[in-house]
């Protein structure tokens, strides 16, 4: 009753191919947008906005990784390295050429895309876990290059401080301003992926994931599309790195190491491979879980442990619970949060009937 799909007549191809053909979907998206743009920044304090900012950056990164892993089926553990490529490119442009952020961001992304395409070259021959480890090699080589080539890294400290982004003369530095700044890019990223998957390119990606030999037979140039997938995914990763750099005010490759790549993999697997909503949900989940666990344990832990022991137990317990949640999740719903959401939606589709 709430989620009606019948009785809606469309009279143009445009209406049929719209991103949100159902009115309920349009209302929901409008409500979410209003919430995100108007309500949240006015109501929440700096601390919560800072968490949301971290989540926003993670969403962009997760979307990018999902393009490669979820839609094209190429497992990659090199995501962190592409982020650092983007970060350092933008940082160098910002400090050496005084480039404003609307120049350094796309160039950072493009540079990461180029590097990503190179790292993706082995994907022609190699598949599965073998490819994943080959991308890990890419991660290590890129890390080493940044660490050792001071021309890129700006000195032995390998950290480049960037000035805050300026928009029409206004400096973006408070959490609230950063929130809007990042939110714009999140929206662009989401709309970008959604539209990408409706194009020929997106369909080629999905074909490659499902059955790449058959895809090649029907004429899809899988090498080209695989490289394109790597490139687009790395573009997103590069943009993530740049956004992160502007948020922190510093570019440092130690933030983008193997653990980061694995964190992003966790995000898209928990969220759901091959779905935009999954990337968003997964990013929110993985970023906020440690914070949530810490708050829960601090609130309730005092009942069980002394304060001294608690300080030692809480962090380790957090790791344990994190791992447990991942496993429980996978056992209960291997297709991730996205599938959970779809189940809820299907339930409401036919509500109040049972089927």
């Amino acid at each position, binding site marked *: 009753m709430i989620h009606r799909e019948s009785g809606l007549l469309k009279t143009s191809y445009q209406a049929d191919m719209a991103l949100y053909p159902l009115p309920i979907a349009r209302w929901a998206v409008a409500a979410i947008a209003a919430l995100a743009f108007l309500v949240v920044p006015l109501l929440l*304090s*700096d*601390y919560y906005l*800072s*968490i949301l900012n*971290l989540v926003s950056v993670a969403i962009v990164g997760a979307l990018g990784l999902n393009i490669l892993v979820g839609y094209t089926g190429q497992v990659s553990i090199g995501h962190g390295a592409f982020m650092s490529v983007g970060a350092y490119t933008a940082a160098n442009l910002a400090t050496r050429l005084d480039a404003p952020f609307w120049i350094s961001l796309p160039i950072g992304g493009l540079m990461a895309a180029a590097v990503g395409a190179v790292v993706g070259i082995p994907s022609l021959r190699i598949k599965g876990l073998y490819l994943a480890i080959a991308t890990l090699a890419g991660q290590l080589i890129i890390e*080493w290059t940044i*660490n050792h080539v001071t021309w890129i890294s700006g*000195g*032995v*400290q*390998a*950290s480049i*401080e960037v000035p805050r982004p300026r928009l029409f003369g206004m400096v973006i*530095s408070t*959490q609230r301003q950063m929130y809007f700044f990042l939110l714009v890019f999140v929206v662009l990223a989401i709309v970008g992926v959604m539209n990408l998957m409706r194009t020929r390119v997106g369909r080629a990606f999905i074909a490659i994931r499902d059955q790449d030999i058959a895809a090649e037979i029907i004429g899809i140039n899988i090498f080209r599309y695989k490289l394109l997938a790597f490139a687009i995914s790395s573009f997103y990763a590069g943009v993530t790195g740049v956004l992160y750099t502007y948020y*922190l*005010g*510093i570019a*440092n490759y*130690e*933030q983008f190491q193997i*653990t980061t790549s694995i964190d992003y993999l966790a995000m898209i697997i928990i969220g759901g491979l091959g779905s935009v909503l999954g990337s968003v949900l997964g990013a929110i989940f993985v*970023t906020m879980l*440690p*914070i949530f666990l*810490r*708050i*829960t344990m601090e*609130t*309730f832990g005092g009942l069980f442990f002394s304060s*001294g022991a608690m*300080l*030692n137990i*809480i*962090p*380790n317990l*957090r*790791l344990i619970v994190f791992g447990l949640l991942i496993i429980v999740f996978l056992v209960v719903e291997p297709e991730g949060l996205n599938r959970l959401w779809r189940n809820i939606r299907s339930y409401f589709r036919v509500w109040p009937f049972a089927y």
Partner: protein
Amino acid sequence: MRATLALLAAAALALGAVAPAAAAEIVIGAQCDRTGPTQTVGTNLCPGFNDYIKLVNMKGGVNGNTIRADEVDNEYKVPPAVESYERYKKEGAVTVSVYGTPQIYALTQKLTEDRIPGTSPGFGKAAAADGTKYPYIFPIAATYWSQAAAAVKYAKDQMGGSMKGKKIAYIFYDNPAGREPFPVLEELQKLEGFEMRTFAVPPPGVEMGAQVLDIAQRYRADFVISHLFGRSPSVAIKELKRVGYPLKKVVGFVWGAAEADVEAAGGYGVAEGYSALQFAGVGEDYPVIKEIKEMYKKEGKPEPKEMKESVYYNRGVFLAAIHVEAIRNALKAKPDGKITGADAKAGFEKIKNFTLGGLVPPIEITPTDHEGGGLVQVWQVSGGKWVKRTDWFRAYPEVVGKVIKEAK
């Protein structure tokens, strides 16, 4: 599903019910690494920090205000460090004890913008010793540049006072912190005329057989300066011993200098002769440590086992003490107790002759010098324990000063 939802709702309610900090409380933000690659340090340093705060509060706080140290585990990662920093800001912390080199780099701009002083003792950006360039970053202990200079001085003394033509091996953890001493080492190389070769140990630093073989067998170094941390110092000690290199020709920086490293290497017998730099005293024979022991005895509790790892524990105590001292100075200027980060910064810069009963060298922090002198001691493993080899000293201040000035 429903049970989970109910639990979550209960948690949210409980969160709301938990009261925020009390009024006459001064908050210090204390980051720690309890589960990351430097957890062997964090799990001993942070209890020291917390114990000192407890001691101060037991003695009535600072001018009647209790101090609260809010400890958060940042897992040696940057996002949790940033998130915990925002939390400290929300709680109105006046100082932050940052943990970890990438973390202090990530937070430098924020600390400066928000005007909250952050400390990074014995790690972090050595250039931050310049208080005019980095007004809100306080190394408060020997930076990697001072440590490098001290290590070279010690090596020089051990080699009979002259280094001309001698071969020095610098083995380091291949990340920005490990590479930080390069400018100072290169300057000293020119000054003292020694030959130096660097040996990078890529993270995670658990296997360095080839580098050690090179140092001992091919390069045949006359002295080894080692800048490793986490697990790698103990691995280095073991590997050097395995290839037969005399450990008395090895000196390590401050994070390769603990009882834990010696024990991990196989015990004091294995590590005999290994020397390392310290920026705080070793052992339990200091008045403030005795006071903490007394405090635990009064409560009827055994003394914390972390005290046995005295190198890290004492550093935690020192770190807390210097934060408290800064707050004390700030309160002197503003007796009403409403101090801000800027007041705490001024408080740091008034610290003079701070020795904490001999636990640390006399530290003096000024608006231009946030390092406090960069004094270190050398301790050596000898006869089954750490033995003090030199008194507090500072090496090549002109060279270090020059490098600081030239730093961007």
